């Protein structure tokens, strides 16, 4: 039976059309534009291991944005990721300094991350605080703990040979560093969870229509809590890696990371309204941010203009998204036309 125009289901999409209706198209096209600009204007862009460096630069934001994407999909927001990341970095570094074996220190850090996520989740779903307030408070709480513990003096003297590898300062094998491996595995696992598991479906359900989710018997509060726990875990993993990359842990290590993580997720197609988002998009969104800084540095933009250029790039990013939405609409319309001509 002929379908209604807008559902447009019967026509198999060809590869080109599939690409055009992909929600990550915006960020992909933006990356391509950047890469093209870089290729023509900055031959050095492809020199040496620039791209490799670039990935190394952004890996912590990328890991944070993976967790953030899940929180955004489930209809929340997590402002605490930067501070929790720093706190976990501090925990890992301090324990190692005190002589704990690496893996124990890491487990402790991850437990702290999980605990922070759990507290966020419980404050939001049980106490009923708005997500913004709860995670803002957690941000203050986590960074406050680190300040009290360190009194503003960075933790140092915990670097071991293994930790250089974990921080990505030495490759694991070939050109692959540990952080890259972790980010790839994390992206694949979380991507799989979102696409192919019950929990993933529930994240979308809770963020897209919480009442419907509840009526379908989904434990809405617990699902939301799990999203925050996942985000806290990602923050802990990012913290462990950043402590290695940074060689020290100052109390303000996480400042500004939450905005970067949120931006990466949103550039990658997530929505603050919930129910939308993709891990792959967030990864690309993070890369876009890194690429922007990279281009600014390579092009020798005077540092006083960097912020302006950054702002313009962000606007370009969303306009690219907007244009891709238009293209998506046009494609759907074209399909509809074809459909109705077939039906007629």
């Amino acid at each position, binding site marked *: *039976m002929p379908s209604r*125009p807008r559902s447009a289901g019967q026509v198999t999409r060809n590869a080109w059309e599939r690409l055009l209706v992909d929600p990550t198209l915006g960020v992909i096209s933006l990356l391509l534009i950047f890469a093209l600009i870089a290729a023509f204007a900055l031959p050095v862009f492809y020199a040496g291991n620039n791209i490799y460096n670039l990935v190394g630069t952004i890996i912590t934001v990328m890991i944070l944005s993976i967790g953030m994407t899940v929180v955004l999909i489930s209809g929340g927001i997590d402002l605490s990721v930067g501070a929790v990341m720093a706190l976990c970095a501090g925990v890992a570094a301090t324990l190692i300094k005190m002589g704990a074996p690496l893996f124990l220190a890491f487990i402790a850090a991850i437990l702290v991350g999980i605990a922070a996520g759990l507290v966020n989740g419980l404050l939001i779903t049980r106490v009923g605080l708005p997500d913004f307030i709860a995670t803002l408070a957690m941000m203050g709480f986590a960074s406050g703990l680190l300040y009290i513990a360190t009194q503003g003096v960075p933790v140092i003297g915990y670097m071991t040979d293994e930790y250089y590898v974990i921080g990505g300062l030495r490759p694991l094998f070939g050109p692959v560093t540990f952080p890259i491996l972790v980010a790839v595995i994390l992206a694949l696992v979380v991507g799989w969870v979102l696409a192919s598991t019950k929990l993933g479906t529930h994240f979308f*359900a809770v963020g*897209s229509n919480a009442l419907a*989710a509840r*009526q*379908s*018997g989904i434990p809405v509060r617990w699902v939301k809590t799990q999203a925050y726990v996942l985000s806290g875990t990602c923050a802990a993993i990012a913290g462990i890696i950043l402590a290695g990359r940074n060689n020290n842990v100052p109390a303000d290590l996480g400042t500004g990371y939450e905005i970067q993580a949120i931006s990466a997720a949103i550039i990658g197609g997530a929505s603050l309204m919930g129910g939308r988002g993709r891990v792959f998009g967030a990864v690309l969104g993070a890369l876009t941010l890194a690429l922007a800084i990279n281009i600014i540095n390579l092009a020798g933009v005077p540092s006083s203009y960097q912020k302006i250029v950054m702002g313009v790039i962000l606007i370009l990013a969303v306009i690219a998204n907007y244009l891709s939405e238009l293209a998506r609409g046009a494609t759907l319309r074209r399909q*509809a036309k074809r459909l109705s001509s077939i039906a007629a």
Partner: protein
Amino acid sequence: MTYPAKPTSTRSLMLEVRDVTKHYEGVTALDHAGLSLGAGEIHALLGGNGAGKSTLISILSGVTKPDSGEIVLGGEMISVSGPLAAMSAGISTIYQELSLVPALSVLDNIYLGRELKRKTLGLPLTLDRRRMEADVRDLAADFGVTSSELRQPVSEFGALKKRSIEIIKALAFDTKVLILDEPTSGLEEAERRVLFSHMRSMRDRGVSLIWVTHHLEELFGLADKATVFKDGRTVGTVDIASTSVGDLIGLMFGAAQEEFGGGDTRKITHLEPSHKRRVVLSARNLSRGSAIRDVCLEVHEGEIVGLAGLAGAGRTEVVRLLMGLDARTAGTVELDGRRLSLRNSTAAYRAGIAMLPEDRKQLGILADLSTAQNISISRLSTVASAGFWMSRRKERALAEDYRRQLGIKTPNVEARIGNLSGGNQQKAIVARCLNTSPKLLIFDEPTQGIDVSAKVEVHALVRDYAANGGAAILIASEIEELLELSHRVLVMKKGQVVGEVRDIPAAIEAGDFSRIKSEVLTLSAAGQIS
């Protein structure tokens, strides 16, 4: 097509609700209400808007907790602590408000909360979409949902298809008790019939069904019993076989059927031939991409023009274009001879067009504002001094006026409109439209989800509006309703006008109701482009 109800005495009790009470902020939704449901029985739950039907259902499905009362299922007292508990106890529900998740595919929605899984690394982790699809494919096809549509996100479908999906979702699982809260609202005849046959076969398998509807004629030949609620209390239970629409209305509202015009709802002002009347609206070649093509439409003073068509025929889209809510790609619209810009809805209201939208919850009411504020919003200058200064007194007075005039039932016009019953919300929206003194008023599914009494009242409002010289466009998926109210019907299909049926009041008066009805149905199903 009558199906005799099975004798009740032979059936054992499946579910019993005793003495359930539920208070909401300022409202007693249920007041010691009760219900007994036999095994393998279709039990209608009836009552006016706000009688407490949905509240009882949400208690049975574990979404809401009652303040007091007991639920006995299969002889055992159960506590429905949450939706999951209800489902595992064997209670499955189609809710009144669409409870689908737009972000997920149709398939994921159908299986939401009851996903099938397959093993990954020896653990049942991954969703087994292949099996889910295979299991539900036939049922979905019955309701016109194809395999490829199963994989698309629900957000890509319109309201009617969503309703079908919702029904599939509830039918897909074996349950002891299936609750359907107004499942047919807005459904087409064909889909309605499919649903009914499914309901019947479920009953024959021993499933008990609780069925809420405002379309009382549907009950006959299908339902076995009916329990009537009023003001949160159980008025009584009747055997459908030994009752009539009139009796049921009497129970629901405590009034005789005649007062609702139940005898003859087709009193419509006879219009003079249209060429003598002034043309109020004239739309030429209105198009929106390929979705709406070359729609031409004229509405005269005092005339109600009906738009007929199957789901997705594009009726709503046409009126959205008239309102300037969507951008047109071609065409012109004149109102009283003046060309409209169609830039946005503000311009439409200013020019003199008003609309009652089809999706009351999402597009109609502003749930967190008061009834008074909802009434005034489209023309705030009527309740403002100096053109910008809101006068609470004027606003109250205006709302009180309409409350009296249209019979809006609310304790207080300053109460949140979201807490009113559907019918009363709808009347408030009508009031909002009337307050803009429109030259053209568009009613898109004006009686969706409202009770018989409110329906009659809304019909009267539509008629009055036209009788006073207003021009109206009416969209209603129930063909009877459309014909009863319209002077003239345009039939749409796939975004185009495919035919027209004129002089409907005269035809009805001449007893030709079934002829014009089949004419419209034929046109909308197969009509060729004229």
